[in-house]
């Protein structure tokens, strides 16, 4: 894994294998990932340019994964019950034709094989909050 920090933007790049773990921003934001990296490198981008250089997320690699999860990204932010997540049209096209009951699994598998994650973070009253999430 390669970590790139430019200004307030962190970029976690996964080059090969099947990386699994979580990225933490403060105590309120957690992004779990489980990726199946092929020929193209994959990444998680954390954009905190509005916060500045004090933003320091941490990453933890894990071995085990929940059984009910097929991979991709799992985003949690305490204090934000509803998060608007944007999935690019290109990814959605790949699961749209699946039967409804299989769409979630197909989506997770597609995310784990192809998707990249962009998370934009802001600070509200000493607490980090997710401003936008884009999966493409």
């Amino acid at each position: 894994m390669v970590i790139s920090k430019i200004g307030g933007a962190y970029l976690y790049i996964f080059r090969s294998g099947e990386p699994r773990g979580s990225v933490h921003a403060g105590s309120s934001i957690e992004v779990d990932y489980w990726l199946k990296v092929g020929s193209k490198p994959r990444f998680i981008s954390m954009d905190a340019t509005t916060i500045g250089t004090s933003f320091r997320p941490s990453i933890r690699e894990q071995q085990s994964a929940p059984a009910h999860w097929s991979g991709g990204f799992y985003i949690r932010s305490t204090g934000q019950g509803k998060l608007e997540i944007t999935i690019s049209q290109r990814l959605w096209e790949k699961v749209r034709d699946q039967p409804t009951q299989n769409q979630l699994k197909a989506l997770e598998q597609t995310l784990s094989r192809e998707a990249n994650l962009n998370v934009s973070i802001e600070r509200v009253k000493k607490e980090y909050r997710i401003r936008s999430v884009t999966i493409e």
Partner: protein
Amino acid sequence: MKLLVGLMLILIAQSAYSWDLSDLFKPNKTQKTTRHLPTKKKRAKEKPEPAPTPTPTPSPSRQNYHKVDIEWMAKYRALEAVWAYQIPEDDLIQFEGGSYYVPPVVYRHFDDMASTPKRNGSRTQNQQQRGDF
């Protein structure tokens, strides 16, 4: 007669005296004073000590910068890791509004690494064999 001889002697003596012009052409005996100036020793110019390569300063305007997306940057960092080849201009990369701005040198560095096929005798593998990491 004696008087005449006496007069002649006097005249000869005077003329001899008056014709002595040797004093007129005597060389001046004024002493020449020579000033001894301090000798200027030529000193060898001191060579400036070699300075380390200066870190390029970021330009306030992004005139020649290339705007790239995050996927490009991820691939660039991955290539740098594969080749173990980072350049000082990486410090000039900027991030703003969800996009990265890279100087032309970085852009060319990406092209060089992407277009060069990875071979067995590559730099990274040689370093790994020597245990440089």
